């Protein structure tokens, strides 16, 4: 990993970008990524899987520019629908709906989009810089995390989300439990049998995440819009006044939030399996907990958009760390990307760094550029996009339904997935109806498998000694964070009571 090699490789990548049509593939990838990110249900894994056959005709560097463009643009594309329609385009964007959608309801969609765009592009650049900086330590970072740490990190992610659902913590925890129960359906990777399949062979592979996400958000949102009628925001004057520039400026005024979000994204994103989604929620909840006015979150605080979006784009850099160090995918799209590498005759893993550094630098370069490009492209049309919130919802309902169900089909070419999306649409609507927060359920679906597998692996490694979770320093540290995050409501309750007593006393 000599520095000179990196600089040489960067030069090769740059000349490929400028000279041999790399810029074209990067732009194409960015546009595809943006579109796939915006459409609920279509995300990075689908975009890359659909592109695999198309890259056969390309040389490896061009394929990297295409893939990098997609990976860089997807996270921001996903935030657009999260903000405008309360429907995260991809799972890690789910944290953005907490404050992004309330801003839209207040007519501040333009500002939210501006903040998301600026946070995404800067986060993407920081993520790549952090990746460059940590590459020499990549092995050590990855080796720090073993099953007990994976377990604690998954629990921490779940708790951070349950606590973030302000005032609904109990229902949030219930939703998380049921999410885990759903996640346990299907093949048991540790014991080797199928569980809770109830005779349906479709369930052998478990309940698919992406269609569930489409149902819980896009379809449930369609039902809500159908019932509410009118338009998304009833404040047209505010929509016209809300400035995209205000959102961009807000990011520059809140460097701390941006940097913290990026760092959390890049480092937590490096942890395979748990990474990206947990990172966005951690970034959000840390921002809430350290804020002087936590009660303003969930009601349209622009920091609640900046924190998860910075983390989201930075995680793309982070998820390359395990890939480069050990050939292990850091995220779902990275898993598909590894297949693409192999098809192009490259073996993922440390040998990539030794033999094909230019491929890596091309990818990193294109992720960073695409983050910025996607934001700029979107900023140019952000004001027009914001006008969606003034459209008669009767147009939005059939269009979103049709597009998101096609999206549910596209990942695995399965109509059963589409049925799952509709079923989860009903679940999602009932959760809105009876006031259960949906995000803990979604995150539990994502984390369920790793939570169980890492717990059982830890117990096997320690030969049944459960103290393994508390004797390893990092695992213990994460446990302390869990306890702290869970005690936040209690602490707030005590503080409020003391304040109330003081107010009464004199």
């Amino acid at each position: 990993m000599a520095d000179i090699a990196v600089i040489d490789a960067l030069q090769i990548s740059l000349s490929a970008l400028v000279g041999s049509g790399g810029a074209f593939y990067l732009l194409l990838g960015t546009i595809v990524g943006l579109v796939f990110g915006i459409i609920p249900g279509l995300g990075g894994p689908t975009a890359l899987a659909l592109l695999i056959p198309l890259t056969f005709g390309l040389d490896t560097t061009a394929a990297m520019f295409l893939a990098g463009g997609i990976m860089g643009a997807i996270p921001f594309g996903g935030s657009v629908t999260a903000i405008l329609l309360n429907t995260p385009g991809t799972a890690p964007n789910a944290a953005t709906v907490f404050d992004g959608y309330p801003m839209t309801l207040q007519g501040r969609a333009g500002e939210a989009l501006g903040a998301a765009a600026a946070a995404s592009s800067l986060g993407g650049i920081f993520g790549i810089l952090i990746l460059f900086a940590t590459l020499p330590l990549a092995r050590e970072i990855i080796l720090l995390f073993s099953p007990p740490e994976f377990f604690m990190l998954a629990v921490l992610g779940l708790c951070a989300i349950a606590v973030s659902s302000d005032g609904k913590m109990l229902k949030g925890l219930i939703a998380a439990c049921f999410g885990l129960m759903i996640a346990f359906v299907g093949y048991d990777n540790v014991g080797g049998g199928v569980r809770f399949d109830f005779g349906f062979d479709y369930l052998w592979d478990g309940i698919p995440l992406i269609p569930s996400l489409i149902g819980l958000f896009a379809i449930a949102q369609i039902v809500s819009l159908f019932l509410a009628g009118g338009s998304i925001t009833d404040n047209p004057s505010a929509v016209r006044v809300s400035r995209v520039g205000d959102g961009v400026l807000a990011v520059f005024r809140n460097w701390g939030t941006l940097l913290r979000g990026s760092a959390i994204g890049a480092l937590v994103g490096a942890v395979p399996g748990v990474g990206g989604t947990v990172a966005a929620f951690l970034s959000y909840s840390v921002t809430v907990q350290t804020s002087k006015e936590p009660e303003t979150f969930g009601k349209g605080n622009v920091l609640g958009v900046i924190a998860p979006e910075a983390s989201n784009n930075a995680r793309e850099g982070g998820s390359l760390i395990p890939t480069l160090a050990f050939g292990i995918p850091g995220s779902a799209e990275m898993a598909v990307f590894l297949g693409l590498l192999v098809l192009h005759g490259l073996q993922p893993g440390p040998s990539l760094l030794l033999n094909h550094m230019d491929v890596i630098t091309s990818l990193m370069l294109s992720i960073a550029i695409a983050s910025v490009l996607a934001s700029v492209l979107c900023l140019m049309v952000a004001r027009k996009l914001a006008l969606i919130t003034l459209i008669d919802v009767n147009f939005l309902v059939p269009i979103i339904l049709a597009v998101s169900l096609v999206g549910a089909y596209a990942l695995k070419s399965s109509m059963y997935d589409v049925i799952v999306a509709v079923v989860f649409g009903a679940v999602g609507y009932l959760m809105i109806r009876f006031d259960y927060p949906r995000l803990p359920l979604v995150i539990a679906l994502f984390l369920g498998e790793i939570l169980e597998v890492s717990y059982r692996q830890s117990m096997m490694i320690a030969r049944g000694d459960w103290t393994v979770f508390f004797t390893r320093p990092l695992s213990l540290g994460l446990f302390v964070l869990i306890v702290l995050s869970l005690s936040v409501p209690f602490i707030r309750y005590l503080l409020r009571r003391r304040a109330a007593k003081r107010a009464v006393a004199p």
Partner: protein
Amino acid sequence: MTERRKFADAVPSLVLLVVAVFYCVASFQYSPSARAMPLGVATLALVLVLVDLISLGEGRISRIIRRIFQGSGAPAPVPGLDGQAGQRFPPARELAAFGWIIAFLLLAIALGFYIAIPIYVTAYLRFYGGKSVLVAAATGLGLVAALYGMFELLLGYEVFEGLVFGDIM
């Protein structure tokens, strides 16, 4: 608060209770190591749902639970759409919303997306949205053209084309 109202508020929790119990029972057909985590989580869910049920009540314990988890001892807000308290819709309209969705799903399964989308979008806009036939049809056809262009022409990917035409689900 009337007894009937109280019962209505408790229905979702009771349903979850039944699901959790069913899940616990179902987990016993698997080996001890395979059921440990699902059983544990389902039991935790049971306990939490019970706590939630208790918190609906009027007694001292109910108030304490509410204070801890909800931040105030006031009765739980009436569930509504996205926290817009009190906003409930007649069940007939809720069923209608799902009726349109399921009709589209069945149409797509039978005839494929490229035929189902224009029919559904046009019908929805015309008969539910009250738009003119022209606007409704143009929206439906425009949407299908955009999807066809992106998947078939740009990506070379074939979207489901219906059981009637021999496609596999």
